[in-house]
């Protein structure tokens, strides 16, 4: 088993669409919780990770800008860490993530192994 980070990305519009009315928001949330519960019961959920606040700064040489909103329409909402056999299996786990329903995406990245 190897560890993979699932990075959840969405757009502000996508988030709004997932929200819609309170009833739709609740349905979206229930779909999410069910998806994560499935990861958990199948033993793939390594760590719950952290949600990220949608504010911050982007720092470059000589410039600090407000972000990430100002920079990017493609926002990282948070991450989870899963256990999977390989990258293919990790990608399969992410395939039915509800974030895709409203134009969001999941970036699947292997946690780099350090040669000892």
């Amino acid at each position, binding site marked *: 088993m190897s560890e993979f980070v699932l990075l959840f990305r969405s757009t502000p519009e996508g988030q709004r669409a997932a929200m*819609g009315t309170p009833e739709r928001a609740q349905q979206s*949330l229930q779909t999410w919780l069910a*998806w994560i519960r499935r990861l958990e019961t199948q033993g793939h959920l390594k760590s*719950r990770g952290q949600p990220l606040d949608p504010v911050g700064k982007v720092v470059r040489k000589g410039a600090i800008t407000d972000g990430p909103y100002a920079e990017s329409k493609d926002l990282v909402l948070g991450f989870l860490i899963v256990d999977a056999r390989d990258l293919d299996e990790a990608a399969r786990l992410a395939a039915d993530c509800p974030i895709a329903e409203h134009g969001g995406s999941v970036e699947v990245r292997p946690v780099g192994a350090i040669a000892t």
Partner: protein
Amino acid sequence: MEIDDHLFRREAGRLVAALTRVFGVGNLALAEDVVQDAFCRALEVWPIRGMPDNPAAWLMATARHRAIDVIRRERTARTFAPDVVRVLEHGGTIDPIVDEAFAGAVIRDEQLRMMFSCCHPRLAEDVQIALVLNVLCGFGASEIAAAFLVGRAAMEKRIARGKHALASEGHLFDLADADFTTRLTSVRRALYLLFNEGYHGASGETTVRADLCADALRLARLLGEYPPAATPETDALIALMCLHAARLPARVDETGNLQALVDHDRSQWDRALVEEGLARLERSAAGTILTAWHLEAAIAAAHAAAANAASTDWALVVSLYDRLFAIAPSPVVALNRAIAIGQRDGADCGLAALDGITDRDRLARYPFYEAAAGELELKAGHPDAARERFAAALAVARNAGERRFLERRHAACARTGT
């Protein structure tokens, strides 16, 4: 961990009411934005971190935090509620005012004020109901449009018209206002219509309709918790809602087919709601007034007292319909009275009572008039006549559930006929 059904809808109504207290009714859209932000946040945080122990409190704390931010940021751009403006002018901290808005008793009163404001007599009843559903019950325009079989654009316009009227008042209705009693009458009427839309309405979505009933009952109970509004008439309204809502689980059978009241499996009736309804009905007798709601609740109680249709005290039901017709005559009441007469005196008498409904042309689009005639013809031993009446009912069926129900009844005539 599971979330309560309709948590977000319910909290949307509560939070918008609380936020309106600090933002002012002119900033209703801002209050709705803040609530939506809090929901967005929940959607980002809860799946990853897990559900909070008290989701409603979490949403409230998030909305409160955001409200303070918004007031600080937009203090010069907007006019907030007078209390907030005063504090801002004196350089004080707004936190205690915002905290107060979210306190239990205050949040309930703000919901009542919002309810009373939505039922402004200048607004048409359909606008009042749309506003109540949108602002207090958290339904979106498209959801309300679907329940009332109205186009989405038309419903959006209706809600916008109502919100414009709300804002133009400048403040929410003051519960100490001299007009309280008059306005209370409008509020009860709107809740009654809301419940009826759920119970008798044309939408085929049984879940949507059960939601309308549940929300009408929730808001009526809120009225009942506020002593000046808890009059015998309010008790009668709550009683009739409870006693009817109790039947909802038996209205469709396990295959999704509508069931007529006489065929309900009454073991599926919600006993807790029946008990609450009966207790409310008893309390509603405290005063000297007898309203149509008292009688409607009493009729429902007569049904609830019987184990099945055969053991129902139909003489009592007929006499209650007589009294109901005397104070609130309507073709639907006359129709139900005729059905009860058919049960008490036999099918021929029921048919005669149906024929005797003077303004029965007003029931031309209501499938259950012809359906009632079909049942009575069938019972009287006239399957051919019954088949024609069910065919006529089918022609005006309003949704797939009604159509399926009437097709089954239509087919039953063929079986009896051969």
